[in-house]
């Protein structure tokens, strides 16, 4: 077993390289009002933000750890997590200005290349701070804002931040939301003015390099009426033995007659506790799409929530999770249909191997006024061996007689006949299994931008290597 882990360490070298933290500013482990004040002071924040942080800290300290309804989080000791680690650099808008070792990290992850080829803007966060932020000029001319929350707080958009920040995910939402608001740092602020279509995706990439640290970025996206935006979020971290924590928050406000797509490929290292909260509220006649691929982390709690307020709006959630050895991924999504003729379509896939655990939770709430609302949830699981686990826990709360809901779940294995068939055409056993798993994931990967689909296929290939014998 030890040998296999060794092999995987080598195979995952694309993500597992680490950089020295020398010269970085790293706050003491644990959490005190002094730490919160110094984070706020360093960012030269308005008073209301400091107050919000301190209130959140109090909430965090008063809330009990969630009862044991999901994966075990006892390995997460907050007194050993540094909540703020900053590389010694200023934010750049030109890759040349980014320090060499950090630039090298993002080069290896392919971020600058992706920006040149297919993106309208890129933000790159390293540990607690954004080190790079840039957007194509023509988007800026149209009034699109893509920056950090810190910068937005020092600009004409401060009232907008104040109006929306923490409104969709309140600090009291749960213990880790409170923690997030106490120590948040980095992330993105996106504002799309009325009538604007952002032609190419915006992408934020979050890299947690420091060991035993937390990343608490906040993403705030505001799309006015008649807008169109595709936002991509990528996450990765090298492997450490000390626990790391990711407790980010994503708040998205979508107006009327708009289209928003939020894509994520998450590949945290397997010592990561990923306790992320994502939420969107949507107006009338709009479409929201979530595309989500979760590959990494030791423990994940992740349930993006869509609140469909306006009539005739739709939400689609397409997700895939891959749980291997020592991974317990509790994911899913929550949909609240409030408007009439709203629809929700949820399709998820999970792959479990080497004792990995996947739990899929879905919650569909249909409000009293959601006449003729329709929701369908479908979950399929692929088990690669007998020691792994996959559970589906659907919940439905329907308060409107004219609504329709449907749920279906299937669990499958790779049959010996399939492996025999593919091997008899020349594939090795490993190639055959990888082919089947890629095929299973195909409905999700084909929804991703090309370079992310390629990354996802590579991730599957890496996960499948050494899976035999």
């Amino acid at each position: 077993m030890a040998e296999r882990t060794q092999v995987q360490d080598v195979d995952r070298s694309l993500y597992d390289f680490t950089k020295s933290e020398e010269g970085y500013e790293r706050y003491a482990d644990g959490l005190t009002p002094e730490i919160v004040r110094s984070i706020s002071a360093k960012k030269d924040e308005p008073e209301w933000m400091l107050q919000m942080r301190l209130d959140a800290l109090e909430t965090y300290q008063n809330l009990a750890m969630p009862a044991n309804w999901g994966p075990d989080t006892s390995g997460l000791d907050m007194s050993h997590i540094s909540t703020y680690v900053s590389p010694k650099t200023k934010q750049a808008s030109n890759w040349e200005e980014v320090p060499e070792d950090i630039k090298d990290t993002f080069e290896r992850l392919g971020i600058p290349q992706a920006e040149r080829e297919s993106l309208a803007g890129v933000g790159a966060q390293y540990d607690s701070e954004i080190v790079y932020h840039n957007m194509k000029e023509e988007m800026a001319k149209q009034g699109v804002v893509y920056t950090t929350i810190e910068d937005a707080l020092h600009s004409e958009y401060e009232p907008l931040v104040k109006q929306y920040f923490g409104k969709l995910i309140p600090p009291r939402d749960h213990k880790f939301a409170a923690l997030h608001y106490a120590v948040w740092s980095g992330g993105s602020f996106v504002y799309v003015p009325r009538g604007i279509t952002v032609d190419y995706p915006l992408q934020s990439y979050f890299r947690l390099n420091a060991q035993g640290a937390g990343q608490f970025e906040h993403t705030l996206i505001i799309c006015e009426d008649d807008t169109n935006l595709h936002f991509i979020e990528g996450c990765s971290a090298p492997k450490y033995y000390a626990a790391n924590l990711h407790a980010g928050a994503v708040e998205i406000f979508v107006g009327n007659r708009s289209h928003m797509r939020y894509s994520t490929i998450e590949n945290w290292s397997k010592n990561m506790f990923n306790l992320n909260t994502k939420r969107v509220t949507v107006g009338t006649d709009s479409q929201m799409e979530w595309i989500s691929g979760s590959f990494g982390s030791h423990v994940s709690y992740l349930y993006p929530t869509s609140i469909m307020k306006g009539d005739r709006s739709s939400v689609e959630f397409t997700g895939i999770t891959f749980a291997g050895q020592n991974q317990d991924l509790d994911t899913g999504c929550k949909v609240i249909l409030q408007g009439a003729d709203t629809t929700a379509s949820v399709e998820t896939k999970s792959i479990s191997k080497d004792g990995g655990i996947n739990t899929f939770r879905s919650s569909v709430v249909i409000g009293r006024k959601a006449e003729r609302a329709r929701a369908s949830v479908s979950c399929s699981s692929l088990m690669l061996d007998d020691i792994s686990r996959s559970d589906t826990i659907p919940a439905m709360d329907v308060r409107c007689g004219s609504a329709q809901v449907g749920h279906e779940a299937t669990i499958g294995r790779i049959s010996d006949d399939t492996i025999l068939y593919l091997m008899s055409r020349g594939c090795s056993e490993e190639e055959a299994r990888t082919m089947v798993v890629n095929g299973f994931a195909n409905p999700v990967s084909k929804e991703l931008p090309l370079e992310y689909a390629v990354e996802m296929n590579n991730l599957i290939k890496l996960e499948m290597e050494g899976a035999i014998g």
Partner: protein
Amino acid sequence: MSDTTHGALLSVRNISAGTEDKQILHHANLEVTSGETHVLMGPNGAGKSTLGHVIMGDPTYKITDGQIIFDGIDITEQAVNKRSLAGIFLSYQAPVEVPGVPLYSFLRTITQMRPELKMNARKFRQRVGEICDQLSMDQSFLTRELNVGFSGGEKKKIEMLQLLLLRPKLAILDETDSGLDVDALSVVSRGIEAYREDCDGALLMITHNTRILERLDVNHTHVMVKGRLVADGPASLIDDIDRNGFERFENAVATAAEDGE
């Protein structure tokens, strides 16, 4: 482990094999020379498909005795994919559906695994197009998922497509003709003929149906009963079986069994 004493492409020597709890094949011997067409017949449950699967290396069956030599190499212990790359092809009675894997990219993948078939993307596309025409296959099939949602006849055509693309030295067709309508049967026959002509491949046909054999130049007819190869005759044996069935072979095996083998 080269074996040069024989000119045979495939040599099954005294093979006994079965599942964990049941022996199916008893001391089977079979030789196929390059370019020959062999037919394997026998009543239901005789073990014909098992023999095909054992030659391919299906791990469902354990070999308890004997050897399989292919192209001068002892492959008795070889993995299925190694046998495939060495030039053995097995067409299945019920080809498996593999969701999410597009047929075209699958064909490209399995072709690229074979250095002798190296060709660029354009040449490959052209070659696949030619074979589709040969098999009267709509090219829109190529963008669909491997065998998913295809009818039985269409699946057999996809098997033929792979056969013609991969150009194996030996093709084992396990009841490829079963359950096909007249049109599909004629397409599959055309595929088999094309394989014989273009690739000069050897053929081992496992079948109940003598109709598909009418167009083929059969060199040997083998009869299997209760896991034993009991007869090796010329093409004319097919007509004999067509008229008289397998009864006399079954009786012979019964007598042999009574004599204590």
